[in-house]
Protein backbone atom coordinates (compact mmCIF):
# COMPACT_ATOMS: atom_id res chain seq x y z
CA UNK A 1 0.00 0.00 0.00
CA UNK A 2 1.39 3.45 -0.88
CA UNK A 3 2.57 5.50 2.06
CA UNK A 4 4.02 8.87 2.92
CA UNK A 5 7.68 8.72 3.86
CA UNK A 6 9.75 11.25 5.78
CA UNK A 7 13.46 11.74 6.32
CA UNK A 8 15.29 11.95 8.58
CA UNK A 9 13.45 10.23 11.39
CA UNK A 10 15.35 12.33 13.94
CA UNK A 11 17.18 15.60 13.40
CA UNK A 12 19.26 17.30 16.07
CA UNK A 13 20.39 20.85 15.43
CA UNK A 14 21.81 23.87 17.20
CA UNK A 15 19.65 26.90 17.82
CA UNK A 16 19.93 29.36 14.93
CA UNK A 17 20.77 26.70 12.36
CA UNK A 18 18.71 25.96 9.28
CA UNK A 19 17.02 22.60 8.89
CA UNK A 20 15.24 20.97 5.98
CA UNK A 21 12.74 18.22 6.64
CA UNK A 22 11.92 16.01 3.71
CA UNK A 23 8.78 14.19 2.71
CA UNK A 24 7.76 12.01 -0.20
CA UNK A 25 3.96 12.15 -0.50
CA UNK A 26 1.87 9.41 -2.06
CA UNK A 27 2.54 9.65 -5.78
CA UNK A 28 -0.90 10.51 -7.19
CA UNK A 29 -1.83 12.92 -4.40
CA UNK A 30 -2.28 16.59 -5.14
CA UNK A 31 -2.45 18.26 -1.71
CA UNK A 32 0.41 18.31 0.75
CA UNK A 33 0.55 19.38 4.36
CA UNK A 34 2.88 19.90 7.27
CA UNK A 35 1.78 19.53 10.87
CA UNK A 36 3.73 19.55 14.07
CA UNK A 37 3.18 18.09 17.50
CA UNK A 38 5.05 19.48 20.46
CA UNK A 39 5.54 16.75 23.03
CA UNK A 40 2.36 16.18 25.02
CA UNK A 41 0.33 18.66 22.99
CA UNK A 42 -2.11 18.49 20.10
CA UNK A 43 -1.22 18.05 16.45
CA UNK A 44 -1.10 21.55 14.93
CA UNK A 45 -1.55 22.51 11.30
CA UNK A 46 1.30 24.48 9.74
CA UNK A 47 0.67 24.74 6.02
CA UNK A 48 -1.05 23.21 3.01
CA UNK A 49 0.32 23.24 -0.52
CA UNK A 50 -1.37 22.71 -3.86
CA UNK A 51 -0.36 23.35 -7.43
CA UNK A 52 3.09 24.58 -6.38
CA UNK A 53 1.87 27.22 -4.00
CA UNK A 54 0.76 27.60 -0.41
CA UNK A 55 -3.03 27.35 -0.20
CA UNK A 56 -3.42 27.85 3.52
CA UNK A 57 -1.14 28.48 6.49
CA UNK A 58 -1.51 28.92 10.22
CA UNK A 59 -0.17 31.67 12.44
CA UNK A 60 2.62 29.31 13.46
CA UNK A 61 3.95 29.32 9.90
CA UNK A 62 5.83 32.61 10.05
CA UNK A 63 8.66 33.96 7.93
CA UNK A 64 11.18 31.49 9.30
CA UNK A 65 9.27 28.63 7.65
CA UNK A 66 9.08 27.83 3.97
CA UNK A 67 7.91 24.91 1.88
CA UNK A 68 8.94 23.71 -1.52
CA UNK A 69 8.27 20.95 -3.98
CA UNK A 70 11.63 20.92 -5.71
CA UNK A 71 10.84 18.03 -8.01
CA UNK A 72 7.95 15.73 -8.81
CA UNK A 73 8.26 13.67 -5.67
CA UNK A 74 9.71 15.57 -2.71
CA UNK A 75 7.99 18.08 -0.46
CA UNK A 76 10.22 19.94 1.97
CA UNK A 77 9.80 22.11 5.05
CA UNK A 78 12.64 24.52 5.77
CA UNK A 79 13.13 26.28 9.08
CA UNK A 80 15.62 29.08 8.50
CA UNK A 81 16.83 29.84 12.01
CA UNK A 82 15.67 27.26 14.49
CA UNK A 83 14.54 28.16 17.98
CA UNK A 84 14.30 25.95 21.04
CA UNK A 85 10.52 26.01 20.79
CA UNK A 86 10.68 24.49 17.30
CA UNK A 87 11.52 21.16 18.93
CA UNK A 88 8.62 18.89 17.99
CA UNK A 89 7.50 16.01 15.81
CA UNK A 90 6.86 17.25 12.31
CA UNK A 91 4.36 15.28 10.25
CA UNK A 92 3.93 15.49 6.53
CA UNK A 93 0.59 14.46 5.03
CA UNK A 94 -0.93 14.22 1.59
CA UNK A 95 -4.42 13.81 0.18
CA UNK A 96 -5.74 12.94 -3.28
CA UNK A 97 -7.82 16.05 -3.71
CA UNK A 98 -10.05 18.48 -1.95
CA UNK A 99 -13.32 16.67 -2.54
CA UNK A 100 -14.99 15.67 0.68
CA UNK A 101 -15.25 12.00 -0.14
CA UNK A 102 -11.52 11.66 -0.52
CA UNK A 103 -10.42 14.39 1.84
CA UNK A 104 -8.62 11.99 4.13
CA UNK A 105 -5.06 12.99 4.77
CA UNK A 106 -2.44 10.29 4.93
CA UNK A 107 0.36 10.97 7.36
CA UNK A 108 4.00 10.08 7.31
CA UNK A 109 5.78 8.66 10.36
CA UNK A 110 7.16 12.04 11.36
CA UNK A 111 10.54 13.65 11.91
CA UNK A 112 11.54 14.39 15.46
CA UNK A 113 13.34 17.72 15.52
CA UNK A 114 15.43 18.53 18.57
CA UNK A 115 16.86 22.03 18.83
CA UNK A 116 19.66 22.41 21.37
Amino acid at each position, binding site marked *: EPEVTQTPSHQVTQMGQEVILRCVPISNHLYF*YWYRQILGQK*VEFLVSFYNNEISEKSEIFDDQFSVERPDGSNFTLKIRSTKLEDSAMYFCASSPDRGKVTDTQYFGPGTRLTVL
Partner: protein
Amino acid sequence: DQQVKQNSPSLSVQEGRISILNCDYTNSMFDYFLWYKKYPAEGPTFLISISSIKDKNEDGRFTVFLNKSAKHLSLHIVPSQPGDSAVYFCAANSYTGNQFYFGTGTSLTVIP
Protein backbone atom coordinates in the same frame (compact mmCIF):
# COMPACT_ATOMS: atom_id res chain seq x y z
CA ASP B 1 -8.00 28.65 20.60
CA GLN B 2 -9.00 25.04 21.16
CA GLN B 3 -11.64 24.44 18.51
CA VAL B 4 -11.61 20.67 18.97
CA LYS B 5 -11.49 19.24 22.47
CA GLN B 6 -10.95 15.79 23.83
CA ASN B 7 -11.47 16.14 27.54
CA SER B 8 -10.37 12.68 28.53
CA PRO B 9 -6.59 12.29 28.21
CA SER B 10 -6.78 8.57 28.91
CA LEU B 11 -9.20 5.66 29.01
CA SER B 12 -8.80 2.04 30.13
CA VAL B 13 -11.17 -0.68 29.01
CA GLN B 14 -11.29 -4.44 29.41
CA GLU B 15 -10.82 -6.53 26.30
CA GLY B 16 -14.16 -7.38 24.73
CA ARG B 17 -15.97 -4.40 26.23
CA ILE B 18 -16.96 -1.20 24.47
CA SER B 19 -14.59 1.78 24.27
CA ILE B 20 -16.22 5.19 23.90
CA LEU B 21 -14.03 8.14 23.03
CA ASN B 22 -15.54 11.61 23.04
CA CYS B 23 -14.82 14.81 21.19
CA ASP B 24 -16.40 18.27 21.31
CA TYR B 25 -15.98 21.13 18.89
CA THR B 26 -16.85 24.80 18.97
CA ASN B 27 -16.80 25.88 15.33
CA SER B 28 -20.22 25.50 13.71
CA MET B 29 -18.55 25.73 10.28
CA PHE B 30 -16.98 22.31 10.69
CA ASP B 31 -18.68 19.83 8.41
CA TYR B 32 -16.32 16.89 8.23
CA PHE B 33 -14.89 14.93 11.11
CA LEU B 34 -12.32 12.21 11.35
CA TRP B 35 -10.75 9.95 13.88
CA TYR B 36 -7.08 9.12 13.67
CA LYS B 37 -5.21 6.48 15.58
CA LYS B 38 -1.59 6.95 16.52
CA TYR B 39 0.93 4.44 17.80
CA PRO B 40 4.17 5.63 19.40
CA ALA B 41 6.84 6.68 16.89
CA GLU B 42 4.34 6.60 14.01
CA GLY B 43 2.24 9.22 12.25
CA PRO B 44 -1.53 9.41 12.75
CA THR B 45 -3.44 6.81 10.73
CA PHE B 46 -6.91 7.49 9.40
CA LEU B 47 -9.55 5.38 11.11
CA ILE B 48 -13.05 6.59 10.23
CA SER B 49 -14.80 9.76 9.15
CA ILE B 50 -18.24 11.30 9.12
CA SER B 51 -19.80 14.11 7.16
CA SER B 52 -22.17 16.55 8.83
CA ILE B 53 -25.05 15.29 6.67
CA LYS B 54 -24.94 12.02 8.62
CA ASP B 55 -25.27 11.24 12.30
CA LYS B 56 -23.66 7.82 12.23
CA ASN B 57 -21.01 5.98 10.25
CA GLU B 58 -19.98 2.42 10.88
CA ASP B 59 -16.94 0.46 9.72
CA GLY B 60 -16.53 -2.95 11.26
CA ARG B 61 -15.88 -2.59 14.98
CA PHE B 62 -15.72 1.20 14.73
CA THR B 63 -18.73 3.51 14.75
CA VAL B 64 -18.67 7.29 14.85
CA PHE B 65 -21.70 9.23 16.06
CA LEU B 66 -22.23 12.91 15.38
CA ASN B 67 -24.57 15.15 17.35
CA LYS B 68 -24.51 18.47 15.52
CA SER B 69 -26.77 20.31 17.93
CA ALA B 70 -24.46 19.43 20.81
CA LYS B 71 -21.32 19.84 18.66
CA HIS B 72 -20.23 16.46 19.89
CA LEU B 73 -18.94 13.32 18.30
CA SER B 74 -17.94 9.99 19.71
CA LEU B 75 -16.06 6.93 18.55
CA HIS B 76 -17.30 3.53 19.69
CA ILE B 77 -15.08 0.49 19.44
CA VAL B 78 -16.76 -2.81 20.10
CA PRO B 79 -15.46 -5.26 21.00
CA SER B 80 -12.23 -3.62 22.14
CA GLN B 81 -9.01 -5.52 21.48
CA PRO B 82 -5.52 -5.09 22.96
CA GLY B 83 -4.27 -3.98 19.53
CA ASP B 84 -6.60 -1.00 19.77
CA SER B 85 -4.37 0.47 22.48
CA ALA B 86 -3.16 3.75 20.97
CA VAL B 87 -3.76 7.49 21.10
CA TYR B 88 -6.94 8.51 19.28
CA PHE B 89 -7.23 11.97 17.80
CA CYS B 90 -10.43 13.61 16.73
CA ALA B 91 -10.04 16.07 13.83
CA ALA B 92 -12.41 18.48 12.11
CA ASN B 93 -12.44 20.38 8.86
CA SER B 94 -14.68 22.97 7.28
CA TYR B 95 -15.58 23.51 3.64
CA THR B 96 -13.93 26.94 3.86
CA GLY B 97 -10.43 25.58 4.30
CA ASN B 98 -8.35 22.46 3.98
CA GLN B 99 -6.59 22.33 7.30
CA PHE B 100 -7.61 19.88 9.95
CA TYR B 101 -8.02 20.94 13.54
CA PHE B 102 -6.97 18.23 15.93
CA GLY B 103 -7.93 17.51 19.50
CA THR B 104 -5.27 16.73 22.09
CA GLY B 105 -5.87 13.00 21.89
CA THR B 106 -7.13 10.27 24.20
CA SER B 107 -4.80 7.44 25.10
CA LEU B 108 -6.77 4.18 25.05
CA THR B 109 -5.49 1.14 26.88
CA VAL B 110 -7.30 -2.13 26.31
CA ILE B 111 -6.52 -4.54 29.12
CA PRO B 112 -6.33 -8.23 28.13
